């Protein structure tokens, strides 16, 4: 009995081509990509809400009142709306329509 026979006894090479295996791999790739994207979104959301939560106690500790911060809120709101508008423009009308249809 030679090495090849020993190797075959331990485990044969699978029959090829095996499209099912390729499909399983590709579906795993897609699943992992979705998981990474979801984890990234979760981290971003947690980060944003943590920053908002930390901002108000810090501002209060620094002696800033809501009236003092009003210009800052206005600027933040304008920047936020401009960001959303720019994002929609970058995606184009088809992207916006697609996003609406996906909901």
């Amino acid at each position: 009995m030679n090495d090849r026979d020993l190797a075959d006894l331990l485990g044969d090479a699978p029959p090829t081509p095996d499209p099912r295996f390729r499909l399983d791999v590709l579906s795993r790739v897609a699943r992992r990509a979705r998981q990474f994207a979801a984890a990234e979104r979760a981290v971003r959301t947690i980060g944003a809400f943590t920053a908002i939560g930390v901002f108000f106690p810090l501002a209060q500790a620094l002696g800033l009142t809501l009236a003092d911060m009003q210009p800052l809120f206005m600027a933040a709101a304008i920047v936020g709306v401009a960001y959303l508008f720019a994002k929609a423009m970058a995606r184009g009308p088809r992207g916006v329509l697609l996003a609406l249809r996906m909901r």
Partner: protein
Amino acid sequence: MDAAAEARLIERARKGDLRAFGELVDAHQPSVRAFLRRLTGNAADADDVAQEAFARTWEVLHRFDGASTLRTFICGVAVMYWRRSRRSNTRRQAREDAYADLADADAEPYARAAQRLALRRAMDQLPEDQRAALALCLGQDFTHAEAAEVLKLPLGTVKSHVARGRARLRAALDLDAENDA
């Protein structure tokens, strides 16, 4: 598949072309799956590790620098996953392997099933690195240098692992005694 065609597919896969990656999977799955089957002794577990390894390869393909072959690179990822799954599933795997061995043994001639079980037991008793080196090199699918690259071990160590492992397997089947007689 020649090296130039493979390089082109790798380049396309790096740019996000899943079809090109699918072709790479087709090209390398026989050797990767055969290696893992020898290593784990269980086709289902081997395919599970192989699929994880290919999926991870897609994510880290940008790290592949072409210094080794892609097959070696994928097997390196596969060995990492095998070690990880082994640590977490040792007991479960032992139980399922024993069951799979029994199930497979029913479908093949007794003498061959007995040989396969004896080999499996001998293989399971080998240290982790030695088992992996043997699974890579035994069927001459991989050279010693490629196995050293996959396992991140010195070439001499791989050679001695393979020689000693082969002797243990042959002893488990009493082959050397038969040859001497």
